[in-house]
């Protein structure tokens, strides 16, 4: 396999097959697995099935129940809270196909959600079935599988409205051919949206009503977050074929601690309140800071991860707004980092950056 990043259903094909074989509970029409098995696939069973998502079980249960009641699912959260990751794995587990994907952008046109035309054929043959180019969502309706729409709130409002009929009547009329595509059972839509984009292209209440919303939070405990970061760093390091650097758990813990403290605005011991910077400081960013630090250590350093290797990355992640965030960071360095035992190296490195 040479793909830089294989699809979820390929990467975890074994686990999916195993779960399907052992699954004796009723499956909703069109589903490859029962809802319980889907939840197990995402959260892991502690043995063969690895956890894909580390977080509250109830959220995943609500998400899976939503899909089972053929309501569309809207995953909401700040950047880096595994929205896309969860939606990909949900689609892979439910319908075995996570590729029916529409990336929402400010330039997403209605064709990307409904259907487009092959203009050469359209001119030659006029409107025919063969000239019609179905969108991923239309294909998902035909095959009865899960379609995914990324960054829904980036899509212009008039284009978003194309979803209303699809979601409420589960049908997509094609007036040019005087036909329609009716969704097969098992069709559903998972959309993701960024919390920070609120107000850019706010969903109309008509559309909002057709979604159940699940808010993915930032990891609840430091241990969870360290685990997430450590696991992903290991996976990424392998697939990017970075030279082996023992990912120092201590540094991971430090990065996670700093991110958590700044994000929540309070130190882990609950004693000192802090200002929060404008950036999101998600687990995903922590992962990239560590990966970056490891690449630095492997290629330019002595092969072990030092505070200096991550300091630059951390400062870059924290200071997004050069004025206000710089104050936040300096305040944090002086009031918290400096006085914390064992952090002196990091303090020096961060100050020099």
């Amino acid at each position: 396999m040479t793909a830089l990043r294989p699809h979820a259903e390929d990467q975890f094909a074994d686990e999916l097959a195993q779960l399907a074989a052992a699954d004796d509970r009723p499956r909703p029409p069109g589903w490859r697995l029962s809802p319980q098995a889907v939840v197990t696939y995402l959260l892991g069973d502690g043995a063969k099935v690895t956890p894909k998502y580390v977080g509250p079980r109830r959220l995943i249960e609500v998400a899976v129940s939503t899909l089972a009641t053929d309501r569309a699912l809207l995953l909401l959260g700040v950047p880096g809270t595994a929205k896309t990751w969860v939606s990909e794995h949900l689609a892979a587990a439910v319908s075995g196909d996570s590729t029916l994907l529409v990336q929402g952008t400010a330039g997403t046109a209605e064709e990307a959600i409904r259907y487009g035309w092959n203009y050469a054929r359209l001119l030659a043959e006029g409107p025919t079935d063969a000239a019609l180019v179905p969108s991923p969502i239309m294909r998902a309706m035909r095959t009865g599988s899960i379609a995914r729409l990324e960054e829904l709130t980036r899509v212009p409002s008039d284009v978003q409205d194309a979803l209303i009929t699809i979601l409420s009547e589960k049908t997509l009329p094609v007036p040019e051919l005087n036909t329609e595509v009716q969704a097969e059972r098992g069709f559903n839509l998972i959309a993701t949206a960024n919390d920070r984009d609120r107000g850019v292209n706010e969903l109309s209440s008509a559309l909002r009503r057709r979604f159940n919303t699940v808010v993915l939070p930032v990891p609840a405990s430091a241990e969870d977050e360290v685990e997430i970061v450590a696991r992903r760093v290991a996976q990424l390091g392998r697939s990017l074929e970075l030279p082996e650097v023992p990912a120092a758990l201590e540094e991971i813990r430090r990065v996670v601690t700093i991110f958590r403290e700044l994000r929540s605005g309070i130190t882990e011991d609950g004693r000192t309140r802090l200002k929060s910077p404008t950036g999101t400081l998600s687990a995903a960013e922590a992962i990239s800071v560590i990966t970056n630090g490891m690449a630095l250590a492997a290629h330019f350093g002595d092969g072990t991860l030092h505070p200096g290797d991550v300091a630059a990355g951390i400062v870059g992640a924290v200071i997004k707004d050069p004025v206000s965030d710089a104050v936040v960071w300096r305040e944090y360095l002086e009031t918290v980092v400096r006085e914390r035992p064992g952090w002196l190296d990091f303090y020096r490195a961060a100050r020099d950056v």
Partner: protein
Amino acid sequence: MSERFYGVRHHGPGSARAVVRELAAQQPDVLLVEGPPEADELVRWVAGSGLEPPVALLGYAAEDPGRAAFWPFAVFSPEWQAIRWAVANEVPVRFFDLPYAFRVGGSGPGGRAAPGVPDGALDSTGPGAGAVPEETVESGSGPPVGTSDADAGRHRPVDPIGELATAAGYDDPERWWEDVVEHRGVPVFDAIAEAMTAIREGAPEEPDDLLREAYMRSVLREVRRRHENIAVVCGAWHVPALTRKVPVRDDTALLKGRRKGKVVFTWVPWTYGRLASWSGYGAGVSSPGWYHHLFTSTDSVVPRWLVDAAGVLRAEGVPTSSAHVIEATRLAEALATLRGRPLAGLAEVTEAAEAVMCDGEPLRTALINRRLVVGERLGAVPDEMPAVPLARDLAARQRTVRLKPEATGRRLDLDLRKDNDLRRSRLLHQLRTLDVPWGEPAAGRRGTGTFREEWTLRWQPEFAVRLVEGSMWGTTVAGAATARVVRRARTARVLAEVTTLLETCLLADLPEAYPEVLAALDTRAALDADVHHLMAALPALARTLRYGDVRRTDLAGLATVTASLLKRICAGLPSAAGSLSDDAAKRLRDGVDGVHQATGLLADPKLRELWLVTIESLARRPDLHGLPAGRLTRLLLDAGRLDAAEVRRRLRLPLTVGTPPAHAAAWVEGFLAGGGLLLVHDDALLALVDEWLADVPAAAFDDVLPLLRRTFGTFDAGERRAIGERVAGPRPGAAQSGAGTVDHERAVSVLPVLSALLGREIRIREDA
């Protein structure tokens, strides 16, 4: 002989329903309920319509209202329902728990009784303030809520039925009760008693429980002598102990020698919010609103609940349609199925409402939680209910400090160095936090560090009502004031608000509130992005720190907060100093002045160093507005961080070609501000300015003059003249020549007037 034991889950609607059903079937002659026997008299109020749950029995020591405990009842409490049934059917009711008098009595476990320690009052601020968990959780009418009497740790399961439910894989004990007990129609209470016996065999015994159960058994024996058909409603935990055969002498031995204090009981109104906060320990009632719903709605529990939730959202202007309710109901049911549960419970309906109706807005979820899950129901008691302990405590305090409430206003002068006056001042300050402004501080002569206080006292009749309202905060003045201040500190939005509260804490002597307020101060300081607010807050803190001990207050902790405040100011100041308008520059200058003074007061060389380093680097910045720049240079000069030569260089800079005149003017103004008087008396400064002026080349002098005039023009005419004289006159150290020449003739001419004024003749000595 028929004798039935109903082991209930306190505040369990399922238990409540079952108890009423069983009582109706049994028709007992007498009903025994777990609760303080001193409150037997108060049962009659239950029949009237004036008493509306949620209410609580409040018991307190007659001579020390600070020792108090509450026994809350909601409409879904089994005890309440049982009492209601008994009163309606004219069956006598007796509370048969250990009398509260034993706990107040002072012997045994209830030893923490320093007078004035507001333990009960403090406890009423919520859980955690010294309340023993099991006491709090088993809050029904079992052991008193909130007494800190049993200091023992938590040994036995706090919510035995909850334990059973957990063992069965349920997170909500009520749902377990519904599923397992109600729906199967098993002989409920026998099964529960059996299960409890099993659990109790494996659990450690609590000495306090043994004592209470001994008392319960002795009451039971007494009742048996007169009645045949007895019903007992108590916490399920106690059932095995009550049915067990125990020799009489064991019980009497346990109970012997316990002293009894005098206690008074009354009903007070309660709220679902308090009910929820009491038992913030996982068991009991975290969701009184949901239990109320479970108890009152007979069918379609989930749809009705979600309809209510939609109503809550609609009332706040969130469009919520019936379609939402339908989808939420479907989701709740799907979730229940996914989790393998026969019916959707609170967790499912909450999650469904969150996903479908709240659009992921945490505020809406919180709204539903507050309005519906907890509920805002407020109980009521009849007006004829006896007096509250807070009023009694106030009366006692008034006697101790010898201050009588009088309706006519009078002035009171307090010298805080005297003990009694200090106590009076504290009492008045505490009352003010409770909205009982019996004394108003006289305007004017107030300043930290003084030991005099002037008050105007006037007692107004409506204060009595305010005391009743205030008694929800606690049973003593100090306790209630503490609770009130803590609450306000928690909800404060602005830094200045918290600084005021901190001052209140010191003035009113509320040491228990102090850490909370400090924490709030720290929080506000950290979150306040405006460095001006921080700078404004610092001087008051520094003053308190320096002069606070006049009131003999403990200032530990304040120093840390003040230090961290200064650090934050130092971190934030540089970025707040860029691109300032004239007004903002003035604000900054004033703020910096205040902080500079405060660092002087703090007398901490490290902090002062930090501050000076900060302003040093700030003063060097070329983009800084002239006013603060001049000011900072001056501060640094005064602090000895810059030598005269460097200051002269800096003084010269603004007056060079590259500087716009306005900047230069502001700089000079900033540098020389502080009044002309300083220039008159500070020789070094005057010399510096003088030398600098002399240095200005003649060609440039015309340009500099207006700038100087702008600053010097603000000084008093007298000051200006004095400065001029100092500059023109001889330098200090030179002898004062020429002062001796007196025009005798003119001097003599004032003598008649002086004589008239002084009333005696004045003349010049001949020898002069």
